[in-house]
């Protein structure tokens, strides 16, 4: 008879009647309330459908009875975050760069905000953390073409280098070779002199010849000893950092026809608080003066 409950001879427990390869499934019944909890959760999911955006339609979607909208929720969160930041932004606006750097809570905000702005706007050229790449200068070292004080950094960010802003930082090294100001031999001699003042292997007699040419042609911008002049953005030639390379051939190439990098002016593109924060951030990368 089908109504007979079969019992497993070993455990004495009833079986479900299901059998696989001679193995019978023991019946360990689930309590009914547990099943009802499952039905309850299914019912709850229907409530969820009704409350929140759910079903797609032809001309849009069912928006839910609560009128919840993720885009709007996001906008609200951003607005509340902006409101929280407003007090700090106001203080950043009013404070000088020195004040920002010397007040721990302002400095923390500026460094964090500057870091975010740097990653968005500056890192594509200067690298994350100001690591530098290619012919884009490293900002984490201690060599500055246009100065490494807070104010100098801010000035550079505001107006750029060789940008289209009227207040831009600007200089141009003549293309001594291409414009036939110096002959090949003279360029080679100056290059030997530059190798000498930067402490590298050089030809002494050529360097001595080069020194005279340097004093005549280069010292006006690079300084008597080649230590550079910040006001002109002329790099220090005696240190071990080179934007366009410090080997003999690279130096010759730069004297022959100098390359010039361009940095855009950020005033008008970023608000003053962000530029202040960027100055504080770049100053704090390891080489600030």
């Amino acid at each position, binding site marked *: *008879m*089908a*109504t007979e*409950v079969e019992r497993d001879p070993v455990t004495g427990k*009833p079986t*479900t009647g299901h059998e696989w390869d001679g193995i019978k499934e023991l*019946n360990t*019944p*689930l*309590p*009914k*309330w*547990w*099943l009802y909890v499952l039905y309850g959760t299914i019912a709850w999911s229907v409530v969820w459908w009704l409350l929140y955006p759910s079903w797609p339609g032809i001309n849009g979607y069912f928006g839910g009875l609560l009128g919840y909208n993720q885009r709007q929720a996001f906008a609200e969160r951003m607005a509340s975050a902006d409101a929280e930041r407003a007090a700090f932004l106001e203080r950043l606006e009013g404070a000088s760069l020195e004040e920002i750097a010397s007040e721990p809570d302002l400095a*923390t905000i500026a460094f964090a905000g500057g870091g975010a702005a740097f990653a968005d706007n500056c890192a594509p050229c200067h*690298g*994350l*953390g*100001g*690591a*530098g790449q290619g012919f884009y200068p*490293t900002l*984490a*070292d*201690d*060599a500055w073409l246009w100065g490494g004080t807070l104010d100098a950094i801010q000035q550079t960010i505001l107006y750029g280098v060789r940008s289209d802003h009227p207040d831009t930082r600007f200089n141009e090294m003549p293309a001594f070779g291409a414009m036939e100001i110096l002959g090949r031999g003279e360029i080679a001699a100056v290059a030997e002199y530059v190798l000498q003042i930067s402490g590298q292997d050089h030809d002494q007699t050529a360097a001595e010849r080069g020194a005279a040419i340097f004093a005549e042609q280069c010292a006006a911008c690079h300084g008597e000893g080649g230590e550079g002049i910040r006001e002109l953005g002329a790099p*220090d030639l005696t*240190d*071990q*950092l080179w934007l366009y390379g410090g080997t003999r051939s690279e130096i010759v190439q730069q004297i022959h026809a100098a390359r010039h990098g361009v940095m855009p002016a950020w005033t008008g593109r970023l608000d003053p608080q962000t530029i202040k924060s960027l100055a504080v951030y770049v100053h*704090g*990368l*390891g*080489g*600030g003066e």
Partner: protein
Amino acid sequence: MNEAVAVEDARSFKELKKERLYAERIKIHPKAIKGRFRTIKWAVLIVLLGIYYVVPWLRFDRGPGVPDQAVLIDMPGRRAYFFWVEIWPQEVYYLTFLLILAAFGLFLVTSLAGRVWCGFTCPQTVWTDLFMRVERLIEGDRGARIRLEKAPLTQGKLIKKATKHAAWLAIAAATGGAWIMYFNDAPTVTRAILTGNASLGVYFFFGLFTATTYLLAGFAREQVCTYMCPWPRFQSALLDEDSYVVTYQKWRGEPRAPLRKNQDWSSRGDCIACNQCIAVCPMGIDIRDGLQLECIGCGLCIDACNEVMARIRWPPDLITLDTERNQASRAEGLAPVRRFVRPRTVIYAAILLAISAGVLLGLAFRSSVDAEVLHDRNPLFVRLSDGSIQNGYTIKILNKAREPRTFELAIEGLETARLKASGREADAATPILLAAAPDSVTTHRIYISVPRMALSDENASLWLQLTEPATGQTTRHETVFWGPE
């Protein structure tokens, strides 16, 4: 077999399947009982509930501006207070150790004496016991409750039921309220709840724990132990033949038979089949079937059986706490042996002691300063104008004291290294001093540079040491210095 019978059969089979695949809830009406185990259970209940409800109200002075609640988990403040112990989120591993201790404590006790935790101290058991006591006060004992259950709905029944649920809800609310107090200042949050000024979060958790207490202790009861709790499934792995568990002494009790006048005991067992052990059981099981998943080891059946044995003037402890090994010996008339010291109990106890000692030592020698050193990822290093290599680090000082402190920073393990922080370089006369704000984490940027030639490898290990000049307290952290390949 005619057709009608076949149809009848098919229907009954369908119904049978429905019955069988989902178990019907059988309502349990445990009977009141007095005895040794009941007394222990009441004592444990009073102590545990006392601790639970009273502890949030204990005060512990920690000075101005700091919560004065002895036990408090301050979520917004990111601190946990336990009398003189204060834990930061960074030290949440103490909680891990606490959980491990709880686990091994449970293993040890279970291997010695069965499910003592379940029968006496588990919150589910304690609150269910309390709710049953209230139920008994209002609706009467087992017989009265069964009659009330079957009675038609009259005004009297309605009043009794309403009173019971009101009382349950009151206890549940007190339970939910007490839970909130472990996370909020007790007097403040109590006032806020009562005046309707508490936050939505407080009301939510208050409601949640009120509802779970009401449902679990009032309605779910033994279903929690049988179907929801994983612990009963573990017990067979923790019990062995030397564990003391609630045992019906089958060799003595069987064959069972009802008691007759002028009973001749020679050809029968001691069990008089009065079923009092089933009547008092909060799990609704028959202990005479042997050790089973549902048994929480509360011992109330022992109390019930002993009461009956006393009444018929027959030796007690037909149901008793005993081991499987002893039962086998007793059945053969041999002397029982106690074996508390067994490999598993020794190992559990040793682990328990070792972790307890570790936690206590850790708390006793907990330093009031710690630091984290993070090496810059980008750039890993930069070349400076004099050719040396510089690395940047972020150092976070965790000052667990309540006053501002200053620490002197020093490098170890990297000769000729120069240290720069706060915009200047360290020298012998003026070391780098880093400020640490009270009871918080202070972040500083520091830079270390070494001459190119000093680096023999791509990277080098170094230690940063923070020393408080005033107290000489130090903390040391290893980090790495990267250079070019």
